[in-house]
């Protein structure tokens, strides 16, 4: 489903990823870990075309990312749901509308949108805050909105960047369980995290990045 072939990514002064290669199967749930600044977020960015890579090739489904045309990018991204590390919530939309946006972009009818958003807000335990402004909510609540937005359209791929950084251990477990459920429905899920608790005992594959390389592959 997702292939990295000798992918390198440089920023002005330094190398973030150097000749990284790995494969993710369709329907897999995979963790990426490593210290702060290792390149976890960058790796996810390369997948959703939030940044371009400098060497190698990334293949996602039928798309070769080095050759994808600009006009195809919106459609390509519709296959992907993203939990951004810095949330990227729209400040002037309510919680409900923030989540609904993912479906509006995909052209769903308002009736269907309403049903799906209510459902997912219940799953992340935020239904009582649907009409609140996200900026008025606690860090953990905001993080759950982002997760809801990423999963609401049931995309083929979900990229979750530090999805529990602002959550207490119990809520974290709920979220991981939610992602597991969605994974069981067939979505491929990639989770970037620095906290080992998240993947320990999951039995899933874990890639550890450091010094711009994959230094270890293990089972969680």
């Amino acid at each position, binding site marked *: 489903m997702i292939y990295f072939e000798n992918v390198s990514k440089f920023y002005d002064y330094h190398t973030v990823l150097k000749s990284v290669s790995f494969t993710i199967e369709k329907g897999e749930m995979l963790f990426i870990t490593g210290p702060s600044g290792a390149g976890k977020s960058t790796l996810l960015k390369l997948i*959703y*075309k*939030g940044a371009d890579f400098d060497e190698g090739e990334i293949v996602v489904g039928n798309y070769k990312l080095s050759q994808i045309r*600009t006009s195809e*990018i*919106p*459609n*390509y*991204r*519709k296959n*992907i749901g*993203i939990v*951004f590390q810095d949330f*990227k919530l*729209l*400040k*002037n939309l309510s919680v409900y509308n923030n989540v609904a*946006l*993912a479906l*509006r*972009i*995909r*052209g769903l009818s*308002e009736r269907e949108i309403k049903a799906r958003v209510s459902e997912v807000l219940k799953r992340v335990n935020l239904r009582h805050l649907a009409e609140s402004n996200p900026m008025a909510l606690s860090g953990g609540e905001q993080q759950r909105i982002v997760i809801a*937005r990423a999963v609401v359209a049931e995309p083929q791929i979900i990229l979750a960047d530090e999805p529990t950084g602002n959550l207490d251990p119990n809520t974290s477990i709920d979220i991981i369980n939610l992602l597991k459920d969605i994974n069981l429905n067939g979505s491929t899920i990639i989770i970037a995290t620095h906290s080992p608790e998240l993947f320990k005992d999951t039995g899933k594959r874990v890639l550890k990045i450091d010094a711009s390389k994959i230094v270890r592959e293990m089972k969680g």
Partner: protein
Amino acid sequence: MYITYSIKTAFKSLIDEKWINLLCVLTVASSLIIIILMGLFLFNIERLADKLHERYGMVVFLDERLTENEIRSLLSTLQSREEVSSVRYISKESAMKELKEHLKEMSYIFDGLDVNPLTPAVELNIKKKYINAKNIKDLSNDLQKINGIDEIYSAEKIAESINYFYRSLTNLGLIIMITLTSGVIFVIYSTVKILFYRRKEEIEIIKLLGATKSFIRMPFLIEGSIIGFTGGLISIIVSFLFYFAITYRLGSVFPFVETLIFPTEAIFVFLIIGALLGIIGAFIAVGRLRF
């Protein structure tokens, strides 16, 4: 479809950014007001100029001793000239009357006068297309040779000046109108650009969520057209009030003002022009979107 979402977003932005939008609408409106009034002015100047031309005439002073028959044949000679649209005979007596009217309060100077020192005359109206210095001069030279004509008052310079004045006015007006039209586009462009920059963060986010170009663009185009349309509406209303006030207040003092015309087609034209300029400005402002 996302068109309801686009409309909602456009209206939300209009309200959220009411200051800058108001500012923009007012700037657009005042530019359009100037364009409209300028257009009105030129439109009416054109009409007045036509009238002035129609009224332009040469005056031919006749020998006092001509008989009625001689005068009649002279008139038909004059009338037969290609340049002449109509002729009018002014007798000694009516000349004096006209002169006194012209002098108004100073007409007393003729009160003590027993003899009428004036001569009979013929006023020639010249066809519009012949009104220029050269033709008038030629005509005047030709007429000079006719028997019974004493003297000719032709004022070719005045004809020239009116023509020149009218042409300069039209050109100046057109230049101002074109400048202002690009000004309107520029103003809407900058405003939408500002709104665009203000929502830049938001747009970057929805791009990452998979939004297409038209999904991103639509709210701005709607907003631009609403701004332009509102500007057009205000400008039409204000210009009409202005036109109404001028004809109403000044009409009694300067009768020619009452003949000014405000063409009703302009109302619709300017609403559409406003909206169109708005869409153009918005389209340029959003520009090429990169993913």
